[in-house]
């Protein structure tokens, strides 16, 4: 039997670019759908999840992140948190997020410190587009940082044994260099994880 098409859903936390995440996944040939963050986990049939960014300030209104915590704890398949999704993942897993000393809006230069599986084959420094008031200030246990910028030391992180990833910047927008490649890398991670399961 041929394997069915990969299915990666986008959990909507109210971001301006949630629909862009859906579009990139669709452009990469993945079956995708945007679902509200109140969707019960048992209704999510997927090989991976993207937790979108959004207006909620993770430190102030955590309840607006809906069931994101449950997905991280119980889903089992790979999860990529972006912006608020990334900050929420960090705090949920025991790290800290707080208002940025210097928030970043728009064009920012990112340095990749560890290409790991997400940034494999990409340049060491690249232009990424940002839009955040808060950031991860302390990694959760068992997470490592993968990238930084001048004003934000944790631009990307991953769990050392579980398939959990977080990005402060936005790979889904047109102006971020190599964004499609990062999404493809995440899809590959989802595919590898499905084969193992």
């Amino acid at each position, binding site marked *: 039997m041929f394997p069915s098409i990969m299915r990666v859903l986008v959990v*909507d936390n109210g971001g*301006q*670019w*949630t*629909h862009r995440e859906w579009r990139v996944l669709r452009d990469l040939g993945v079956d995708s759908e945007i679902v509200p963050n109140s969707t019960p986990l048992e209704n999510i049939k997927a090989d991976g999840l993207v937790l979108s960014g959004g207006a909620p300030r993770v430190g102030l209104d955590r309840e607006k992140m809906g069931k994101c915590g449950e997905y991280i704890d119980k889903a089992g398949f790979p999860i990529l948190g972006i912006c608020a999704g990334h900050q929420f993942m960090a705090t949920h897993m025991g790290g800290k997020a707080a208002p940025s000393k210097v928030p970043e809006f728009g064009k920012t230069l990112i340095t990749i410190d560890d290409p790991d599986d997400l940034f494999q084959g990409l340049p060491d420094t690249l232009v990424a*587009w940002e839009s955040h008031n808060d950031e991860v200030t302390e990694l959760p246990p068992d997470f490592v940082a993968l990238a930084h910028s001048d004003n934000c030391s944790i631009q990307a992180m991953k769990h050392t044994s579980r398939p959990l990833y977080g990005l402060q910047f936005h790979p889904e927008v*047109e102006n971020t260099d190599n964004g499609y490649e990062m999404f493809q890398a995440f899809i590959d991670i989802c595919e590898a994880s499905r084969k193992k399961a």
Partner: protein
Amino acid sequence: MFDPQEFIEQQIMKLREEVKGKAVIAASGGVDSTVCAALVGKAIGDRLLAVYVDTGFMRKGENENVSEMLRRLGVNHKLVDASDEYFDALKGVTEPETKRKIIGEKFIRIFEREAKKSGAEYLVQGTIAPDWIESGGGMRDIIKSHHNVGGLPKDLNLKLVEPLRDLYKDEVRKVARALKIEVAERQPFPGPALAIRVMGEPTREAVAIAREACAIVEEEIEKASAAGKMKLPWQYFAVLLPVKSVGVQGDIRAYGYTIAVRAVDSVDAMTAVYSKIPHDVLEQISIRITNKMKDKVNRIVYDITHKPPATIEWE
């Protein structure tokens, strides 16, 4: 990847199913609504009426150009002059969201009126993804109320048809090219038009200044681009600022307003970078606007902000 041909076939089939009676389409002459008019026209033929509203905030020559274009497109169409209504409704209004809401609601009331006259039950709009994303709702913050989303009243008595809701402009342009739509490459011009390119109350006088300045910006940039001096930006226009400064014109003190020139490059309007326009093009724009506007405008500035943190338009 997005396949325009497949999209066109699917949408025509869907529209035939969905639109059973007559429909009016809100037509601005831009790429989104023109693509919609072509798609719906293919699906329901003569049962479609395109309604173009002259709000009084249109650019130079726009009313004539759009009417001609709709005629060539071959859809039934009608021009409604509502400029007095709009200027009246915006008297004393300065807050950008209030402007947008008033303009949006007025559009809908006019379409309802026209629908009633023609016996239509459906309203077709060329709403695309950034329109509803930026208009907020649910947990999404309101960045700005797009006129075709934020102006929709709760008691709308027409059935809304929006075939392009999930597309971005670059995808709409692909559909437009596949349909051989002549305005496929036209720069975006949001519905609230020059009313949001005048900071503060959009009076007839202020709108006339913004109109003239926009025309000069368009002419100079298009000329430079045709001459190979620069790439045509995604969107390029002028904004009238309520800021006065001191100048000297003909040995006389001048105290006039400021025009901001804005030009950006983008793919989908969700992010944008300001255009690196050559200085001699900016210089020409500056000279022409200040000479033309005499003592009304004596200072021109260029906006060098990306989106985010800014948005493309100023309001």
